[in-house]
């Protein structure tokens, strides 16, 4: 007979099961809820074919940039816009689709004696870790087999991992929030894709139009506010400040670089991204706790 690792305690009378001591012990061990759900999610998602495909595509794209561009630092520089478009898009689509696909299982977990908040964190981290892991593997493997993870490219590589992880965290939380709010999968997916398009594609066009239309006005502060209002702009600025490539900054990034300089700019963008993670997480947790399943 197959066995599980757990050894089991003496079976007690059902009436004793909610004894204060047992309840207290369960309460004390509640942090394990997050770990248990996250681990199960990891097992599920890390073997998901779409997540594996995401990692493979990133490997192929980074490898292609290597072959075209040369050094590790140059390949990473070329990777910038790809990361800014692909990471939010994949996280958005996968997050919403996965939420709906695992809806019934989530209900089964909700029927266990666990707080909803802990369960949500388990689901969120279980989504975040495999996707961020796939991203890390995708951009790191080519660097490794080309022996390009040197002193020059290491800080930039670290920043890429941080920014990629942050964008996964932001859009993963937004995807779960949308998933919780909208029971209609297509509606949720459409809304999520719309948000991605707005943040990744349309936003800079809007900012440039604003800069052109109000060119007679001092626009530094509104431009900084505009950058802070878009996590992808923040991520781009954080990376480009490190790349020191003014041509890639875009309008809002150029304003930030001129106004704040490199180190302060990184701190500001880092804080901005942290807020952008915290906000959708808060909204999603709130919606999850109030939802009728």
């Amino acid at each position, binding site marked *: *007979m*197959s*066995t*599980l690792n*757990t050894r*089991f*305690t*003496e*079976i*007690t*009378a*059902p*009436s*004793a*099961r*909610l004894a204060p001591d*047992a*309840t207290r*012990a*369960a309460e004390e*061990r509640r942090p*394990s*809820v997050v770990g*248990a*759900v996250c*681990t*199960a999610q990891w*097992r*599920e*998602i890390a*073997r*998901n074919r779409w997540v594996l495909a995401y990692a493979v595509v990133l490997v192929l794209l980074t490898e292609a940039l290597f072959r075209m561009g040369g050094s590790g630092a140059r390949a990473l520089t070329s990777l910038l816009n790809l990361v800014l478009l692909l990471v939010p898009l994949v996280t958005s689509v996968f997050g919403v689709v996965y939420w709906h696909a*695992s*809806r*019934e*299982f989530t*209900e*089964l*977990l*909700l*029927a*266990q*004696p*666990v*707080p*909803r908040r802990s369960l949500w964190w388990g689901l969120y981290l279980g989504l975040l870790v495999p996707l961020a892991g796939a991203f890390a593997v995708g951009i790191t493997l080519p660097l490794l087999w080309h022996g390009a993870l040197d002193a020059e490219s290491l800080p930039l590589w670290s920043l890429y991992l941080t920014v990629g992880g942050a964008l996964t965290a932001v859009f993963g939380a937004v995807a779960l929030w949308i998933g919780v709010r909208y029971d209609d999968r297509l509606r949720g997916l459409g809304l999520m894709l719309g948000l991605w398009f707005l943040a990744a594609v349309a936003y800079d066009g809007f900012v440039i139009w604003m800069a052109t239309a109000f060119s007679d006005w001092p626009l530094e502060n509104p431009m900084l506010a505009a950058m802070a209002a878009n996590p992808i702009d923040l991520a781009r600025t954080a990376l480009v400040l490190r790349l020191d490539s003014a041509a890639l900054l875009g309008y809002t990034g150029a304003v930030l670089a001129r106004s704040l300089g490199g180190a302060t700019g990184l701190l500001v963008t880092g804080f901005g991204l942290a807020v952008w993670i915290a906000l959708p997480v808060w909204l999603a947790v709130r919606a999850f706790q109030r939802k*009728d*399943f």
Partner: protein
Amino acid sequence: MMPDLASPTGLRHAGDRAAAPGAPARLAARGVRKSFGAVNVLADVELALAPGRITAVLGPNGSGKTTLNKILLGLVRPDAGRVELDGVDVTGTDAYRARLGYMPQSPRFPDNLSARDVLGLVRSLRPAAPVDLDASIEGFGLASYLDRPLGVCSGGQRQRVNAAVALLFGPDVLILDEPTAGLDPVASASLKDRIAAERRAGRAILITSHVLSELEDLTDDVVLLLDGRVHYTGTLTSLRDATGAHTLERGVAELLRRTITTGAPIGRAEGQA
């Protein structure tokens, strides 16, 4: 060989006790009301599940059975009313679910997880509960596909995992939504035997099913929901007496006919909580 779900090794609990008809309700819904937007799904629903009794909640699609199940489980918040466990209001709390087992209708587990993963996860969510996973694996015949991804398991195999999860902790209350759906006749009969054994062990059991013939030999009490209202509460015997029908299926059909004709609830039989 099919496992004998009715006599799983090691799944007898020290707290097993004889059926106790007429005992006070273990889990109850009191004056529960729920609407989704303009649609009233449940209206002043009273339901009591007694230890050692199986209550069949019946009704056509859209009658509110699933919503009632979910309110009892805390998945849906009632607009009014409360859920009580042993007379204590547990509405909006989560710890009471340590004494509940739930078997949803559609066992849609994550494709890449195995039965071992699922049982291990559920086990880790109830760290304080005593349980014998090995006995459960043997009792439900899961050993042969324990490490196989559930995405490639048959519907019947997944349904057995579903049943194992619900019964794993020997909960005081079982909520079973179409428990025999997807099972072959042998496995279905075996699961029904197991449910009957749980009744003998003193569990309070709620079953919903569309296949009324499946419930005939299991049901003690009948609750008929129609348009979110309880139209009949009573024992199976009193239902037969009231309708003159010999089977549950015909009795319910007769109740529905009378309800539709008169437009009023049929009533409540004697001796119900």
